[in-house]
C-alpha cells in the first residue's frame, strides 16, 4: 500500500511560550499528488500546520507536541529536520528574507551544495529546475535586479532543484501583484499535474485558491473548520465570514440569490459560471 504524503493523528501543539494551543487535535491526510489550499485568519494555525510538515515543529520551534505527524511514513519527531526537509521543500511569504545569494545561479547552487549533491549531477539539476519554472533567462542575473514575482520564482526554482516530494508554500503571493500571483499558481498547478508533485499552499487570496486548487482546508483557532472540495467549502459563506475568510464575490452573489429564492444550483466560482448562472435565472429577459 502506498503511503500518504502527510498523515497527522490527534496532533496538538503549543509553542514554548504560548498560552494556548496553536494546533488542536488535527487529523489530516494528504495523499501523494494532491494540490491542497489552506486558508484562515491570522493566528488560525496555518503556518504552524505547515511547520509540522517540514519538521520545523518540533525541531526548531519547541513546545508541547502531542499526537503524530508522518511525512511519507516517517515520524517527524523521531527523524531529524534534515531528513524531513529533504522530503518537503518550503517557500515563504517574505521574498527577500529567504534569499541568501547575490546571483540567481548561486541561490540555486546553495541548496544543492549543502545537500552534498555530486558535482556532475549539479549542472543538470540546475538546468532542469530553471526550465520547470521558466526562468532559464534569469540564470546569470543579480537577485536584487529582479521583480518580486521573478524573485519568488527563483525561490521556487532553488527548492525544486533539491527534488522534494512535496512543496509547502506559505503565502507565496502576498507581496505580488495579480499577474505575478497568477503565474506562480499556474507554475504550481503544472508541477502538480505533470510531475505529480504534492503541493500544499497557505494563501489569503481566496480567488486564486478557488481557481487553482481542488481541495480547500479552512482553519480557525488551531482547528480545522472545513476540509473539502473548494465548491463545497464555499457554500458556507457565513461560517467562513465568521472565521475571517471572505468568498469570491461571485460566490457571495450566488449565495445572495439563493437566499432570495432566485437560484438553487451550485455556487459558481469563476466568472464564466457566474455569467451562465445569471443568464439562466433571467432566461429571455436580458
Amino acid at each position: 500500500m502506498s503511503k500518504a504524503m502527510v498523515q497527522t493523528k490527534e496532533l496538538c501543539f503549543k509553542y514554548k511560550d504560548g498560552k494556548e494551543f496553536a494546533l488542536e487535535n488535527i487529523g489530516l491526510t494528504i495523499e501523494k499528488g494532491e494540490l491542497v489550499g489552506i486558508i484562515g485568519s491570522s493566528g488560525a494555525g496555518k503556518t504552524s500546520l505547515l511547520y509540522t510538515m517540514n519538521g520545523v515543529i518540533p525541531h526548531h520551534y519547541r513546545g508541547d507536541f502531542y499526537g503524530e505527524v508522518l511525512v511519507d511514513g516517517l515520524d517527524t519527531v523521531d527523524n531529524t529536520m534534515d531528513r524531513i526537509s529533504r522530503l518537503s521543500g518550503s517557500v515563504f511569504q517574505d521574498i527577500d528574507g529567504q534569499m541568501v545569494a547575490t546571483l540567481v545561479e548561486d541561490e540555486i547552487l546553495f541548496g544543492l551544495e549543502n545537500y552534498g549533491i555530486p558535482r556532475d549531477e549539479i549542472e543538470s539539476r540546475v538546468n532542469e529546475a530553471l526550465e520547470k519554472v521558466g526562468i532559464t533567462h534569469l540564470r546569470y542575473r543579480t537577485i536584487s535586479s529582479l521583480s518580486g514575482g521573478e524573485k519568488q520564482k527563483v525561490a521556487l526554482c532553488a527548492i525544486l532543484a533539491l527534488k522534494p516530494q512535496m512543496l509547502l508554500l506559505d503565502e507565496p503571493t502576498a507581496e505580488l501583484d495579480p499577474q505575478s500571483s497568477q503565474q506562480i499558481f499556474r507554475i504550481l498547478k503544472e508541477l502538480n499535474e505533470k510531475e505529480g508533485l504534492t503541493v500544499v499552499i497557505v494563501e489569503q487570496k481566496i480567488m486564486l485558491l478557488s481557481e487553482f486548487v481542488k481541495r480547500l482546508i479552512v482553519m480557525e483557532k488551531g482547528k480545522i473548520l472545513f476540509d473539502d472540495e473548494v465548491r463545497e467549502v464555499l457554500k458556507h459563506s457565513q461560517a467562513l465570514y465568521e472565521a475571517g475568510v471572505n468568498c469570491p464575490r461571485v460566490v457571495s452573489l450566488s449565495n445572495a440569490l439563493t437566499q432570495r429564492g432566485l437560484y438553487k444550483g451550485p455556487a459558481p466560482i469563476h466568472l464564466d459560471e457566474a455569467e451562465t448562472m445569471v443568464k439562466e435565472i433571467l432566461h429571455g429577459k436580458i
Partner: protein
Amino acid sequence: MVRFEAVSFGYEGKQTIYDVTFQINQGDFAAIIGANGAGKTTISKLTNGILKPTSGRVLVKGKDTKTTKTSELARTIGFLFQNPDRQICQTTIRDEIMFGLKCVLKDNHEIEERINQTLETFGFDGSRDPFSMSRGERQRIALASVLATRPEILVLDEPTTGLDYRECMQIMELVQELNRQGTTVMMVTHDMELVNDFASRVLVVGGGRLLADGDKTSVFRNAEVLKAASLMPPQISALAQRLGEPFEGIHHVDEMADRIQCLKEGASL
C-alpha cells in the same frame, strides 16, 4: 490638496515616472493602482517629499515639496508604509505613538493626551511590545501612530499586504470613517476588490505613466487600460460588463442581486 504638475522622476540615470499630472481634492478617496514596478509607490513617496521630482512640481496644499521641509509636510500628510516593520522603531506601543507626535507637537501635556486618546480608539495596551504582536496588529499600530498626528491627507502604500480579510476590513473601515470626516485619502494598491469597496476615484499607473484617471465605472470598463496595467476588473464589475447594458455601473454584490431580482420580477428599472 495634492497636485502633480508634469512630474517626472528618475534616479541613477533611470527614469521611472514620466510626465504625470493629476490633482487630488479635499475629501477624495483615491486609489492608485498598477502592477508591481509600475511606479505607484514612487508616486506616493513624491507626495510627501521623501522623493522630489526631477522635473515638474508637486504641490501639497499649495506648498512645493521641493522648497518645503519634509518635516513640515509631515504635519499635513500622514504616510503608512506597506511593511509596518519598516515604520515601527520603538519597543512599546506608547513610545511608538509618541515618536511621531513629538515631531509635530511641542506641548508635552497635549502629546500625552493624544497618546491616551489614540490608545483608547484602537484598544491598545500602551505597554506592549509591537514586535510581540501579529503582522495585522503591527499594521494597526503603525496606522495608529500616523493617525495620532491627525493628518489632513493620508497616504497608504499597500495597506493590507499580509493581512487576513478581517484585519484588512478593520483597517479599511477605520480609514473610511476618517475619509467621511473629511480626511483626504490616497491609497496605493493592486487589490481590485479593495479599490472597488472603498475608493471613489481611480488612477491607473503603468510603466511610470498615468494611464487613466476617473470614477470606478469608467476605469473598470476600460479593458485596454487595465490590460496595459496588468490588472483585471473586480469580479462583480467584470460580470456586469459581460451581462451588458441592464447592469451598467454595477460594482457590488447587493446591487447586482437587486438588479437581477428586478429584472426577474419584470419590474421596471
